[in-house]
């Protein structure tokens, strides 16, 4: 029954997302004509001809009817733009994306393992398990397209070890997989670090050590215990890479599913969008289900029998000065640059390297980069922090309050923000609100799944059985036991993604949502600077460094919150 419900939700969501562009505003005939011939003026005759050819005259509901009756027979129709069967296009893209995602998942796991290995070993030896979330936050803050471009220039162009772009054999997948997997692995490392700390400091570990269990036995048990949280997040991150890798796919010319979905959405190629969305939702649901199964398998009957042992509440990290460093640096830069002019164009002073006159150099239009970074700081940070806070609230509400899984989270998680944004923009119109809604609509899923698995473990803990036996109210249990254990890791999980959210917000600018030039939003600075990354690295390095600082600062701040 539940499966049937999910299936219906899936088909409904697919149909609606695919059809939204039709219901509001933009004429699909114009978009299709544009995709086929970029410069042809759209005269009424040509539009009528396209409309006739595609059968658009019947209106959206007739289209929906035709689509669902065919889809039930496994026929996804033909692309409006190319006239080719959708299944062929989709099949090729899926096999590419599956390979790329598998390799990227491997990279993510390696990165995560490398980042948590040291605190894990120290923890096993009984030393402090203070996680090194700082370095993970640095990696997580690096934009995928920046990692990709740098890898491409170094390993493909300079060293010639790997191909630059295309898709012929496994060597073509290496660089894109690293670009995709590194930030994903860093995000996982933050989650895994928290999970390992909880497992290492749980009371049973002390008993096992006292009982003389071998370190290896304990290590396996700790990994298994922490793995129950990490596998769910791994599934959701992998599903995300499967569906929303469009930026990396463009940099490396990889004909994957993310690119297909975004291109089709821009061209309003409704049959292709629907097919892509359907596949992405299916993969998201499968990844979510696998995560849930893995959690059951790893924890065994203890989860349902209330026999888990939770770690003691975590002590607040004592105030060490270097933790405040990111905030100090960012504030310093803002105070330094806020007095300078971020807008004046000087075509005679293009791409100047850092100097006394321009401490961060100038951009491609001769504008002072320090001024632009400083003026963009408040807006970028405030907006991204606002969206992240919104995401945390949604995640906690859904993850902690909802007892019945987070099917919706699994479903939306993998959708490319651009596809969602187009749907949102079609209904709500362009503007900041649409950008925020679109990004939040996708970004709440990973922390929600995290919150759910943590809450589930808390509820399955032995001390809660005791509390219940003593007559504690549900409310008491929620606020005294569940939330204190769930909120800090979820906050860290959400805030380590803050730079990604800032980038996602900026990436919607070309749809008319969010920041528009000449606003010095950091994501816009990065996007503007990317073409010049090789000859003028500073135009990208400083905004990227600023984004990293904000990311590290956010994680540190979230780590102190209780």
């Amino acid at each position, binding site marked *: 029954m539940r499966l049937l419900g999910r299936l219906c939700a899936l088909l409904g969501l697919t149909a609606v997302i695919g059809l939204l562009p039709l219901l509001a505003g933009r004429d699909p005939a114009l978009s299709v004509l544009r995709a086929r011939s970029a410069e042809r003026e759209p005269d009424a005759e*040509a539009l009528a001809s396209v409309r006739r050819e595609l059968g658009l005259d019947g209106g959206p509901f007739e289209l929906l009817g035709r689509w669902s009756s065919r889809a039930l027979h496994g026929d996804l129709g033909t692309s409006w733009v190319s006239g080719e069967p959708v299944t062929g296009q989709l099949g090729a893209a899926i096999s590419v994306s599956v390979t790329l995602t598998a*390799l990227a998942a491997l990279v993510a796991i390696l990165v995560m393992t490398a980042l948590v290995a040291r605190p894990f070993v120290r923890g096993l030896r009984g030393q402090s398990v203070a996680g090194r979330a700082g370095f993970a936050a640095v990696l997580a803050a690096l934009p995928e397209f920046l990692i990709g471009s740098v890898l491409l220039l170094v390993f493909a162009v300079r060293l010639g070890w790997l191909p630059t772009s*295309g*898709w012929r054999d496994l060597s073509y997948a290496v660089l894109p997989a690293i670009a995709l997997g590194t930030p994903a692995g860093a995000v996982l490392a933050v989650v895994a670090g928290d999970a390992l700390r909880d497992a290492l400091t749980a009371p049973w570990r002390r008993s096992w050590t006292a009982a003389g269990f071998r370190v290896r036995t304990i290590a396996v048990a700790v990994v298994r215990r922490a793995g129950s949280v990490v596998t769910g997040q791994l599934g959701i991150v992998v599903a995300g890479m499967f569906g929303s890798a469009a930026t990396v796919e463009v940099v490396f010319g990889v004909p994957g599913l993310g690119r297909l979905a975004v291109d089709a959405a821009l061209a309003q190629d409704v049959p292709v969008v629907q097919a892509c969305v359907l596949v992405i939702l299916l993969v998201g649901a499968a990844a979510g289900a696998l995560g849930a199964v893995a959690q059951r398998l790893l924890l065994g009957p203890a989860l349902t029998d209330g026999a888990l042992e939770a770690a003691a509440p975590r002590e607040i990290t004592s105030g060490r000065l270097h933790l405040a460093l990111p905030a100090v640096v960012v504030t310093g830069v803002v105070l330094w640059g806020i007095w300078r002019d971020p807008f004046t164009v000087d075509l005679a002073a293009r791409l100047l390297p850092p100097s006394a006159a321009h401490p961060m150099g100038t951009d491609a239009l001769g504008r002072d980069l320090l001024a632009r970074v400083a003026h963009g700081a408040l807006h970028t940070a405030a907006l991204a922090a606002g969206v992240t806070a919104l995401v945390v609230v949604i995640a906690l509400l859904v993850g902690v309050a909802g007892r019945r899984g987070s099917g919706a989270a699994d479903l939306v998680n993998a959708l490319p923000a651009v596809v969602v944004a187009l749907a949102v923009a079609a209904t709500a119109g362009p503007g900041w609100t649409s950008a925020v809604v679109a990004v939040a609509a996708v970004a709440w899923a990973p922390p929600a799944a995290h919150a759910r698995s943590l809450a589930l473990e808390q509820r399955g803990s032995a001390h809660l059985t005791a509390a219940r036996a003593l007559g504690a109210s549900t409310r008491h249990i929620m606020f005294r036991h569940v939330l204190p254990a769930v909120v800090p890791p979820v906050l860290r999980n959400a805030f380590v993604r803050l730079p990604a959210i800032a980038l996602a917000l900026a990436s919607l*600018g070309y749809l*008319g949502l969010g920041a*528009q*030039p000449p606003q010095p939003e950091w994501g816009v600075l990065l996007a503007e600077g990317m073409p010049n990354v090789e000859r003028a690295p500073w135009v990208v390095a400083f905004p990227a460094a600023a984004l990293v600082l904000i990311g590290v600062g956010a994680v540190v701040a979230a780590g102190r919150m209780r």
Partner: protein
Amino acid sequence: MLLRRTLLAAAVLSVCGLTAGCFAGSQAEGPARLRVALPFAPVQSLSPWGDDGVTLTRLGIAETLVRLDPEGRPQPLLAESWTRKSPTTWSFRIRAGVKFHDGTALTAAAAADALSRAAAASPVPRAIKGVGVTAKAAGDLDLEVSTTAPDPTLPQRLSTANLVVLAPAAYQGERVNPAKAGTGPFVLADLDVANGAALARFDGYWDGVPELAGVDVRFVPDGNTRSATLRAGEVDVATNVPISALANVTTEEVPLPRTVSVLLNTAKPPFADPRLRAAVREAVDPAALAKGVYEGHADAATGVFRNTAPRQVTPTGATAGGQKIALATWSDRPELPGVVTAVAESLRGKGFEVEQVVRKYSQLEPDLLAGNFDAVIFSRSYAQDNGDLAANLNLDFSCSGGFNLVKVCDPALDAAIGQALAIEDVPARQAAAMRAQDALLATNAVVPLVHERTIIGRSAGVSGLSTDPYDRLLITSKTSVS
């Protein structure tokens, strides 16, 4: 530990196993094959009736009856010669001895079929839209093409890449399949080209055996990556290299009949006021844009068309009084966002309050057509399809023009355009169009900024690339690589 290793090995193996079927087979790369990186993958299965048509001609797969020389005059290609038999009927003599890639011979009947199919396509190709082209074979090699109204530029129209002549077998119902159906120096084997295509030499090519053994094409959407493929030695030719990625690349620059202009919406305030339009013209500095934003890889414009004599205009000194304007452009062409920011700064200096809008063209167009912007930085080819300046002026700037974004409607301008359209002799017609342009520039509804160039990157050994300003040809039978 052993278990973990086994699992890891199994994972790696399964990844590799999965991929075995996922990759397109490696393509043979001999010394005499040319490897090319193009920006746009075919969107419509290489149907000639959309933008994919140009891919067919640029790669030397298919050919048209007529080609244009750099001055825009029609020259023989698959048609050897032509005469105008009556005001509405032209007779074309098809070149003898031309073979399609499937071995069949090019006849007037095949050419007539190709033209008739294009004229019935959905939508009708731009070059023959509203012309009412009908074609029939009058003999084995004699083709008769008629139009509903007298049309002096019919041969030029037939030069557009949308009107390539393919073998009769290529036309299947409403679809076109150009595999093994062209007449060009290179044969397209099959349509599965999303990952690239391997073209073989056509030994039966009518203009001599091609120098190259074949062409390997791949599609790389990102400009910087395209340049990187060339620098890494993976390809011999990369087209549309962005200006920011020119370092360490050997290039050929082709001046295009394409102009970046500020289009001012004259239908509503503030640019209904000619004084404020003059203020815009006086604010912008085309030379600084060409040198700064385009780094010298574009030419400062004196008119909508290249080679316009500089006009002597006395400055009005007009300034704005804080009028709010929305200045839009699109991000698909990499330099336009830079241009819009530089122009916006100049306009602010003239007293305008400027809001910039930069989107993808597909996201911008509905608002653009609805006239929601006060000014647009627009990159427009003025010689598409037929190279006819008069027709382009008529389309963009006459009262009845189908793409009149500036919404200008000036009787003097319409009269001048009408005069140009009435002239049949090509050079005289172009000269009349240049005169009509003066009337247009006097309105200041359009403020030309720069003429663009296209940049082709190539490795040192490549020679014989076509530098066709109409962007229709690239690889020919004379192209070679050492």
